[in-house]
């Protein structure tokens, strides 16, 4: 029922990632399969990762939708990652629209790995309310925000700044990450707050001595929880959305990474279910593609 126009967004992205994978050398980052939560893992310097994060859901009283964020993540430095998101969505019995872009930077504040590693996240969003990628929930965001037609939602264009404090720990092969989110519509709205918490672990710690695709160490499992915490006008949990979502990540050959997460709404204002699929591909050292190979001179 909800597979209708999604093919038009998802499969071209998957095809693009797969075809790029066949033409470029492999890399195999140990990425966590989080969709909303961020850990302190940053992109390796000089590498570019292209990832599509798709969300499928149906608000109560609205049409089913599929939304995709294409994420271009570049490792500017070992302590600094910059990302550009391009968002789009298709809604059943409605339309498919490009819903804007976001630019974000993540900066590690400590140069050493500690028990808890803080990372600062700064983002600017230029998206209409029709954006349904739901990469975070803040304030009193709920399923009612997703129900109106795209034509109505596109009239409300948002310029937003988002700040996150990411706290993340790696301990005995487990990763525990906590994100504190604050978002401000630069036009007229109050500060809104949200949270995301995630826990993951690879299914096996040691790697095998032979190449494999279905080995346990290629899979990472876990769960994340996320939701809104109200805003500066009503700093309360009343009418806020909260979700719990199991996660599974699979590192495929040729540098392709696949992740899946069914999310379950925990409050009456949450979507009952939201299904998320991610496909990622990493290009190695793209900075070196633009350097001359004449002994280091450029």
């Amino acid at each position, binding site marked *: 029922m909800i597979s209708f126009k999604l093919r038009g967004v998802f499969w071209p992205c998957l095809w693009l990632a797969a075809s790029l994978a066949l033409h470029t050398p492999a890399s195999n980052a140990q990425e966590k399969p989080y969709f909303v939560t961020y850990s302190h*893992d940053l992109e390796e310097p000089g590498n570019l990762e292209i990832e599509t994060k798709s969300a499928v859901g149906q608000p109560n009283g609205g049409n089913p939708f599929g939304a995709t964020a294409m994420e271009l993540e570049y490792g500017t430095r070992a302590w600094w990652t910059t990302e550009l998101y391009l968002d789009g969505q298709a809604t059943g019995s409605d339309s498919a629209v490009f819903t804007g872009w976001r630019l974000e930077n993540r900066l590690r504040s400590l140069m050493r790995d500690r028990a808890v590693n803080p990372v600062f996240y700064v983002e600017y969003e230029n998206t209409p309310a029709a954006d349904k990628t739901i990469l975070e929930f803040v304030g009193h965001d709920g399923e009612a925000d997703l129900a109106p037609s795209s034509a109505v939602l596109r009239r409300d264009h948002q310029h937003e700044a988002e700040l996150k404090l990411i706290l993340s720990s790696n301990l005995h092969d487990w990763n525990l990450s906590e994100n504190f989110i604050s978002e401000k519509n630069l036009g007229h709205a109050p500060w809104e707050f949200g949270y995301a918490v995630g826990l993951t672990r690879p299914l096996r710690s*040691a790697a095998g*001595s032979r190449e494999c695709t279905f080995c346990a160490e290629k899979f990472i499992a876990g769960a994340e929880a996320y939701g809104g915490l109200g805003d500066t006008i009503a700093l309360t949990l009343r009418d806020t959305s909260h979700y719990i979502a199991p996660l599974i990540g699979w590192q495929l050959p040729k540098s392709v990474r696949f992740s899946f997460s069914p999310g379950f709404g925990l409050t009456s204002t949450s979507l009952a279910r939201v299904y998320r699929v991610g496909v990622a591909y990493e290009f190695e050292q793209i900075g070196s593609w633009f350097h001359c190979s004449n002994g280091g001179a450029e």
Partner: protein
Amino acid sequence: MRPSLAVLMIALSSMVALGAASNLHWQRVPPKDHARANPLTNRPEAAAAGALLYKDHCQQCHQANAAGDGHKRPSLHSEGLRKATDGDLEWFLRQGDLRHGMPSWSSLPEAQRWQIIAYLRSIQ
């Protein structure tokens, strides 16, 4: 001072400074980590698994032959690396050197870091 003697002294000073620099990473290693031994030593399959992990995570910067690029990405066939204990190397892989472009590999399971170290030992 004769010019040839001055050149010799500068060369000697540079060698001492380079030697000290190559050991700087290990001087920062806490004693507890420095003393750790690789639990996968003498297990040939650990080095084989480490070779695959090296290809996935390290080769893009340090090259397939671990010779580096002669500039910011150092060779892994170095005296400093040979002198380091397994614990030093595990600490360095976990911490990285973010200021100089070496990422932290704390996101890898600890067993995989020891497998990479087993491989690095096997190619010295």
